[in-house]
């Protein structure tokens, strides 16, 4: 009887409060999260096989399970709630009512490449020397101005930027691709465009256990990884202009304007902690996923 009472008390105990207003919640609807995407109002989490959970700002729910798995890591969501998943050598779309499979003609690329969806009719995905874009009938494959393996894509103002192997970042301005000087030759994994003069890139570091963070201020790329751990790589960067974060095995760090500062450490997260992996922002919250099936949230 005593044991049962203690067990019940333990079950209803609130989780210990985390520093800086963060709370940690098990994400039971999707096992082993791989990708995270936000719109202004919602957040979306996918796993390797393509299961997707949706957060509306208060509650999590699941999108209907697909009849065929959609293997990959990345996803994007358009403001009207269409969800796009990389799915092997194709794209899988949730249109609000059903899942649709889109093939990619002449595709050559690896999974774990960035997807963006500024609208449900304008969607981009990158591969080896090519970029896929939504058309009136499906997706088309176009030149990305390079032969290199690409894993990053962003819309910067009216221009499209892509990034990938060899320190490559290319800008498409008025039908012309131009290589930007990143001053590194290591792989650009992700590009995050917060504003035309506030663009961030996450790249490989000098060694396997380091990362490089670059910041575009409107005129040039500047190395901006001051304060990041020198022996632990960054898994993801994301957030908003006033709340930019880097996440990884070290926990969560926030950009102060001049340096990265610890906001949550692995010790803060405590037992059951898994490496933090992705971060994004809605209009009202910051969300972080880990690889073990947890989500961290904080009001902005």
């Amino acid at each position, binding site marked *: 009887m005593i044991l049962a009472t203690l067990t019940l008390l333990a079950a209803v105990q609130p989780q210990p409060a985390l520093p800086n207003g963060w709370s940690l919640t098990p994400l039971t609807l999707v096992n082993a999260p791989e990708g995270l995407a936000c719109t202004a109002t919602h957040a979306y989490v996918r796993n390797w096989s393509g299961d997707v959970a949706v957060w509306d700002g208060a509650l999590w729910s699941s999108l209907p399970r697909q009849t065929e798995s959609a*293997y990959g890591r990345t996803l994007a969501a358009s403001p009207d709630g269409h969800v796009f998943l990389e799915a092997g050598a194709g794209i899988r779309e949730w249109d609000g009512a059903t899942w649709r499979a889109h093939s990619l003609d002449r595709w*050559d690329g690896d999974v774990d490449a960035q997807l963006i969806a500024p609208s449900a009719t304008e969607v981009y995905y990158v591969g080896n020397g090519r970029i896929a*874009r939504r058309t*009136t009938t499906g997706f088309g494959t*176009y*030149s990305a101005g390079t*032969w290199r393996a690409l894993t990053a894509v962003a819309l910067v103002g009216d221009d*499209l930027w892509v990034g990938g192997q060899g320190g490559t970042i290319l800008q*498409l301005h008025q039908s012309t691709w131009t*290589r930007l000087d990143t001053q590194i030759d290591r792989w650009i994994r992700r590009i995050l465009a917060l504003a035309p003069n506030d663009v961030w890139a996450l790249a490989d570091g000098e060694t396997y256990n380091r990362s490089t963070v670059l910041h575009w201020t409107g005129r040039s790329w500047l190395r901006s990884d001051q304060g990041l751990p020198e022996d632990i790589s960054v898994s993801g960067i994301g957030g908003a202009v006033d709340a930019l974060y880097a996440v990884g095995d070290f926990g969560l760090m926030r950009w102060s304007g001049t340096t990265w500062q610890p906001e949550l450490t692995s010790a803060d997260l405590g037992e059951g902690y898994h490496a933090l992996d992705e971060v994004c922002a809605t209009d009202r919250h910051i969300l972080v996923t880990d690889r073990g099936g947890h989500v961290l949230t904080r009001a902005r």
Partner: protein
Amino acid sequence: MSTPSPRLSAILVTLGAALLLPTIVRADAISGPPACPPGSRGRSSHAGQWCEPWTCTADDTCGAAAKCRPWRVCTKASDVEPGGMRAEPAPPMRMQLVVGTCDPALGCRGDEEPPPLLVGKLLADAPQCRDDRHCVADDLPALPPRTGDVAAPPPPSPSPPATTTTGAAPAAPPPGCGCTSTTNNFASLALLALLLRRRRA
């Protein structure tokens, strides 16, 4: 002491093998071929990933998505250890790795941009460039302007590709396939998926 029955012996042998195998069997993993500049193709082995010159004499040796045409391919020598599990360490092999390519009219030196993926220990010598007939992938269509709905792209053009620079080169050929058109290689994808999972574990 009695002799074990044949059935018990079989069970014991199976159990013994199951316990022993993990100590003598090692996992094997090779990444897929990398993306490579025009005039070269991707290769991979236990040693790593690299690009090699893709010379040719006629279009039909380049597959459906590339043409045999004059192209400049620049290489650097690298001493590459074979990699993989061996009883004895193998001596490094000297290989010529592609570091840059261009239309011959542009006269590139091979050091204008970061190279594709490389393997081994590069020698300090300057790149060696060679104008020859190489397989060069056909151009993909240009991305249409952003305004309005985008129509589907046209089918591949049978005409030779236009002159390009290293900064705006045609897309790479299907890595490593040599002479086949781009296809969805499910086996490669499955291997890649496995490798990705292992890397993240």
